[in-house]
């Protein structure tokens, strides 16, 4: 039976969206940041961050269940027009900056590892143009695209692990606590915004068919995504050993170069690069759409999709500003620390206001 499209998505589409916005982070510059402070125990950081963000997210789920509203609507309903606007603006700025910084860091990877002579503005334009093309078709298309490519990407990255198995040694993971537990936990909290998209993705609740779909997809997707990032951080240490892993940038892409199928089939990184580009495009189409959606909501626009082209243009220009990947990483680090506090605190704040309002009514 062919169902009429209602512009909404189901469990599997939302699950792939969560996976593409969070679970793919092991392949960009996120591990570089994690290894700087997490050292050989960087793989624990995603797991700790998972719990640190998981609790606020569960609280948010409670509120969503109670009010049947997306994050933005909830924000306005609970905090009113003005405070809601300020908080919404803060969220928009986080996503906007995050998208710009991330596109740039992805392009830095492409530039450093694959196309060194191609100018960065051109690469950036290509990435944003293709992401825009998908985002422009609406949220349903993004969800469908994500779901279509999701299994292939997962299979390919698992294959990568199989191919590098020979070069890895489990013993490299020790000493298990790396820089020490207090340091890891403190830094996991400060960097939990690495996985903070899960809070922001709650804004998409109105696009998901049922609350049940949303709950399942976001909880499962978030857990699997964090574990996947953790697993890959461990694989990098197993292959490169510490401290060498801390000295190299873009470990995923270096891993792809290490991969060999037997003796004769080497230099297979192009295969992994191909799938990585596809997943990046899906990821940025989600982020672009989220940026525009948040902006549309804070200025109370019903029709927000026409904002996509100008917003993409802004992101393009903003992403051109940093000089190189180190600068990008510094900005990203700073953004992560700031938004971590905000994203962890937001659900608690909403919950308290909800309680307080509820008491007022009774």
């Amino acid at each position: 039976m062919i169902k009429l499209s209602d512009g909404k998505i189901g469990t599997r589409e939302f699950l792939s969206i969560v996976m593409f916005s969070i679970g793919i982070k092991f392949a960009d510059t996120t591990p570089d940041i994690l290894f700087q402070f997490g050292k050989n125990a960087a793989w624990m950081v995603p797991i700790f961050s998972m719990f640190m963000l998981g609790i606020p997210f569960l609280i948010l789920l409670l509120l969503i269940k109670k009010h049947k509203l997306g994050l933005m609507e909830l924000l306005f309903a609970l905090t009113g027009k003005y405070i809601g606007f300020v908080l919404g603006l803060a969220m928009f700025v986080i996503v906007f900056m995050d998208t710009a910084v991330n596109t740039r860091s992805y392009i830095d990877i492409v530039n450093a590892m694959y196309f060194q002579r191609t100018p960065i503005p051109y690469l950036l334009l290509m990435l944003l143009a293709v992401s825009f093309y998908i985002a422009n078709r609406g949220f349903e298309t993004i969800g469908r695209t994500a779901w279509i490519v999701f299994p292939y990407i997962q299979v390919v990255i698992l294959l990568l692990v199989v191919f590098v198995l020979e070069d890895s040694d489990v013993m490299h993971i020790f000493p298990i606590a790396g820089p020490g537990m207090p340091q890891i936990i403190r830094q996991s909290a400060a960097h939990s915004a690495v996985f903070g998209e899960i809070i922001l993705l709650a804004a998409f609740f109105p696009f998901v068919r049922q609350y049940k779909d949303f709950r399942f997809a976001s909880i499962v997707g978030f857990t699997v995504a964090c574990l996947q990032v953790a697993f890959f951080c461990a694989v990098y240490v197993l292959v490169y050993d510490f401290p060498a892993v801390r000295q190299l940038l873009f470990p995923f892409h270096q891993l792809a170069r290490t991969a060999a199928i037997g003796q004769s089939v080497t230099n297979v990184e192009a295969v992994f690069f191909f799938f990585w580009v596809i997943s990046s495009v899906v990821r940025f189409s989600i982020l672009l759409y989220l940026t525009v959606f948040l902006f549309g909501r804070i200025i109370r626009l019903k029709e927000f999709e026409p904002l996509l082209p100008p917003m993409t243009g802004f992101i393009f220009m903003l992403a051109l500003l940093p000089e190189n990947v180190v600068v990008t990483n510094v900005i990203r680090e700073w953004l992560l620390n700031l938004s971590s506090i905000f994203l962890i605190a937001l659900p608690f704040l909403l919950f308290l206001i909800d309680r307080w309002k509820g008491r007022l009514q009774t």
Partner: protein
Amino acid sequence: MRIAKIVWLCIFPIFLLTGCWDKFELEEQAYVVALGLDKASDNLLSVTFQIANPQVGSTNKGEAPNEPPSDSISFVVPDIISAKELANSVVSRRVNFGHLRTIIVGEKLAVTSEFQHIIGTSLRDPELRREINLIISPENASEFIKNNKPKMETRPHKYYAFMTQRWRETGEVPYSTLNRYYSRVAGELYLAIYATTQKYDQRGSPNEDNYLAGQVPQKGGDPVQMIGSAVFKNGRMIGKLTGEETRYALVLRRRALAHTIVASYADPLNSKYRYTVRLVRRGNTQIKVDVKQDPPVVNVNVPLICQVLSIPSLIDYPRDTHKQKVLKASLEEIMQSKAMQLVQKTQRQYEAEPFLWYNAARMKFWTLREFEAYHWEDRYSRAKVNVDFDIRIEMFGKQLDPARPQQQGRG
């Protein structure tokens, strides 16, 4: 609207032609298959490229019948990357490291402390992969490349590819890539392949693997001998191990890269003869480090499977279980004493270990700082090491009794 769409559809494919800046034509590439590094005066580097000629060995060789399979060029430059650019003043095609698998380093360069930085800085180039094999030669690398004319392998990259495979099987040289070099540049010892095209002190030894490269008594064949290993500490070469020592060093490591050892040992019941066995790992070598005691105690247990390949003394080991026990005990004892000799050599001479035992020691610590404060290399040089070989004789080949001429006469 419709026209706009058509115009868009026509324009968009242009963007798909991306990569115009980085496109390269296969025809215009000069693939470097081996890179030689030597010390030159004034902190400079002498870089030798061995560039493959893809036409040789392919079906269209007929078009250029007199071209050699490869060509080598040397330059004196500050670093590898600038050599690549400079090479294009001579080479008509674009020099490409995409298929570079082997770097040969002259011993004179390897012993300097700058060596680490020379390799390290060039790793920034994405064309230089971390899986490149590192070979150390006592003569200059340029000489090595020039002399290395394998007779049976026309194409040079094939030679290195096949040799790597053989090395991993025999364990007479270590498996040494830049990646491994880079994870062991601190106090631990790193072993690199040792090879030469020269002949040194060639005396036959009853121990067929107790040679360094250049000492193997060989007549005819290819000029390159690869056996033994160069020992690196803190990123520079400080010594070398013979083929036999290298094998023991590899066997004492926790994980084996699937090599088997075929070697001969003195027959315990008839010292005139030596028997030949193939030794295969039965599992991971068990390494237990007790860091609570000072000096630390290291217990190593190597489980091996032994396949007896030849018994020239004609003693009836296959059928006599008692004699098998004697054989096993003597084998274990010989191996143990040789392993201990190597351990003592590393403790006294190098004050560090190539066996990756630091991994086992590291496991005993909770944080990195604690491990660093422990100074494993210092402790190791004083450590009490016990090595045990646990050998199981699995088979005696496909013959029960050796063929004896007199028996045949009687029968």
